[in-house]
C-alpha cells in the first residue's frame, strides 16, 4: 500500500486534534486532542519508517508514546487539582497569566 494513504490519514488526525485544541474549553478534551495530534505524528513516523525500511522511526514512535504518557499524567494531575480546589474546569477561566 502506498505511503501516501498513511500520511494523508495522519494529516487528517492531526487536523482533528488541532481543531479540538483550538475550539474546546474543557481541559480534559484539550488533553485528548493533544494526544490525537501526537499519535498522528507517530503514525507518520511509523509509515515513513516502513517505507524507508529501517527501524529508527518505530523507536521514535515508542519514545513519543512514553513522553505522551508522562504528559498525560501531569495534565490529568493538574485537572484533578483544579477540580479539588473547586475551580471551573474551563481553560478560558484560567487566564491569570495575561499581561
Amino acid at each position, binding site marked *: 500500500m502506498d505511503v501516501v494513504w498513511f500520511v494523508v490519514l495522519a494529516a487528517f488526525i492531526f487536523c482533528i486534534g488541532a481543531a479540538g*485544541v483550538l475550539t474546546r474549553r474543557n481541559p480534559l478534551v484539550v488533553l485528548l486532542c493533544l494526544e490525537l495530534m501526537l499519535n498522528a505524528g507517530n503514525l507518520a513516523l511509523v509509515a515513513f519508517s516502513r517505507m524507508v525500511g529501517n527501524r529508527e522511526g518505530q523507536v521514535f514512535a515508542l519514545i513519543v508514546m512514553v513522553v505522551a504518557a508522562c504528559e498525560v499524567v501531569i495534565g490529568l494531575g493538574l485537572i484533578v487539582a483544579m477540580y479539588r480546589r473547586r475551580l471551573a474546569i474551563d*481553560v*478560558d477561566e484560567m*487566564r491569570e497569566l*495575561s*499581561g
Partner: protein
Amino acid sequence: MTAGGWGWLVVAFPLVGCAVVSLAWRWLPGRSAGWIASGAVLGSFGSAIGALAQLQDRPAHERTVVSSLFDYFHTAGVNVDMGIQVDPLSVFMALVVSGVSFLIHVYSVAYMSSDRGYARYFAYLNYFVFSMLLLVMAGNFVLLIVGWAFVGAASYLLISFWYRRTTATRAGLKAFVMNVIGDVGMVVGAFLIFRETGFLDYQHVFAATDHAFAVNDGTLVAACILFLVGAFAKSAQLPLHTWLPDAMEGPTPVSALIHAATMVTAGVYLIARLHPLFEQAPAAGDVAAIVGCATLLFAATVALVVTDLKRVIAYSTMSQIGYMIMGVGSFAYTAGLFHLMTHAFFKALLFMGAGSVIGAMGGEQSLDKMRGFRRAMPFTFVTFTVGALALSAFPPMSGLFSKDAILAFQLDRGGLYAVLAIVGYIAAGITAFYAFRMVFRVFFGDPVEQAASLEAGELWHGEHFNPATGEAEDTDVGFPGPEHHIAERERPMRAAMAPLALLSIVGGIVFIPGVTDVLERFLEPAFEDSRLAGQQPSVGAEWAGLVLGGMLSVVGIVAAWRMYVYRPGITLRIRDRLPRVHDFLLHKWYFDELYDALVVRPALAFGRFGQTVVETAFVQGVVIGGATSVVRAGTELARAIQNGYLRTYALVLVIGLSGLGLYFLLQSS
C-alpha cells in the same frame, strides 16, 4: 645623590606635607599643622640647594639633567615620561618659589592661628607649593600642563578659602574661569607643537624647532600666542587680568604666596622656559613685550586711585609682572628672572606688612580709614617701608637693579623696544608714587582710633565684617577667625618678614652691572642657545639707566610726600578737577564692565535660552517625551497580545507552524 634625585625631592616634600596635614589634621594640636607644612617646604628648599650644588659641580654645558621616574604613557607615536628637567632655570625658580613659600608658611603659622580652618589652610598651601614646583620642574609639556592646571585649582581653593563669604567664592570662580581660558591655550599650543615636531619633552622639541619651523612660521607663531594666552591668564596680564584684584578676597598670606611670589610668575617662567620657540617666532615675543608694557602702565595708573590696601599691592603686582613679561618677551631672560626674584622678595614683604596692618585694623582694608600707624607698629612700618622702597626702585634697593636691567636691555635693542622702555620708565615714576601713597596714608598723619588703642597696648578687636561689602559675619569655620594678629606681637611673623626685608635691600647684589654677575653666570647655560646670548648693554649705559631710574623713584616719592604729608588735600582737589579721569581709573579702565557686557551677559542670556528652549522644550519635550511614548506604545501592544487565553496562544503557534511548513514546501518545489 644626583641632581635628578634632588629634583624629585623638591617636588615630593610638599606633596607629603599636604598628605600628612590633610589626613592627620584631627590629631595635630595647636599650631603643629602649620609647622609640619612649613617643614615640608623647608625640605623642598633644602633639596633645591642640593640640586644647585650638584649642578654647579658639573661642567657648564652639561648642566641640564633630565630624570624620569616611570613612563607616564607610551602609545603609538606619543611618548611621555613622568620626567623632570633639572637645569639652572628650573633650579633657580625652585629656589625662589620654595624659599619665599617657606617664609610665607612661617608667617601664616601665626597669622592664621585663630582660624577654624587652620589645617585645611596648610593642606591647601602645601598642595599649591607642590603644584607650582611640579610646573617648574616638569620636563615635558604634559607635566607642565598638569602642574599648570593644579596651580589653577589650588589658587581657586585658596582664594575661596573663606567659603562662607560670597565675595570670596565668586572671586575664586572668576580666577578659575580665567585660568581655564589659559589652560585651553596651553593645551592647544602644546598640541600644535606636538603635531609639527612629534615630541612632547622639552629637549627633543627644542632640538627639532629649527628644522620644523621657519622663522615666524605661522603655526609656530600661533602656538606661541596660545602659550601666551596661558601665560597672560596665569600672570594676570591684559586682557585676562581681571581675576587678580578680586583674588585679594583670600587670606593675606595667600595673596603674598600666590599673587606675589609664585603663581603669577608662572607666565614669566613659561616664556623663559620655551625661549627657543619664542626666538624662532619673534612676532609672538613682540606680542608678549607689548602686552606686558600695556599692562604695566595700565596697572600702575589704576594703583593710583584704588583705596583697598591689598588691591593697591595687587595692581602693583600686575604692573611688575608686566615688566617681567616685557623683559622675557624681548629676550632679556636673565633680567626678567632677576626682577622675578627681587619682586618675590619685596612683594611678599609688602603683603605681609599689609596683613599686619589689616590685623591691627580689625580686618578693615580701606586706605581711607587708616592713618598714623607709625608709632604703634614700628616693625611693620620699617619693613613695609623697605618693601615700598624696593618696589619704587629707590637706590640701592634690589628693585632698582632688576627693573633697570630689563629697561636698559630694551633701550639697547632700540626701535620698538626703546619705546617700550620709555613707557617703562614713566610707569616706574608712577610706581614710586603709589608705593609711597600707601606708606604715607597708612603710617603717617594723626593716628586713627585703632592705631591709638594699639599705642596704648590694646589690639583692636572690632565687629567682624566683610571688608568688601561691610556685611556682618561670625567667626565660625568658613569665615576669618576671631583673633587678629600683628607682626609686633607674633614672633613667626617677624621671623618671616625680617629675612625678606634684608633680601629686598641686598637682593640686587647678584647682578650689579660692571660689579657682579653671579646670576648671569649661573643662568647662562640655560640660555646659551639664545640668539641674543652675548648681547648686553654696556656698563656705562646700564649705570645711566640706574641713575635715571633712581631719580624717577626719588621724584615719585617726593611727589607722594608733598601730596599726602606736606600738604594733604591736594589729591582731593585733583580729583574734583578731573572727575572723568578719576572715574575712569577707579573703574579700572572699565574692563570689568566691558567683559560684563561682552561675555557675561551674553553667556547668561545664552544659558537662559538653553534652559527654556533647548532643555525644556527640546530635550524634555521631544527627546525624552518621544522616547517614553514610543516605549509606552510598544508595551501596550505587547500587553494586548498577552490576553491569557490558552487557545489564542495555541492558534498563534499553529499559524506560525503552518506558515513555516508552507514556506519549506514552497522552497522545496
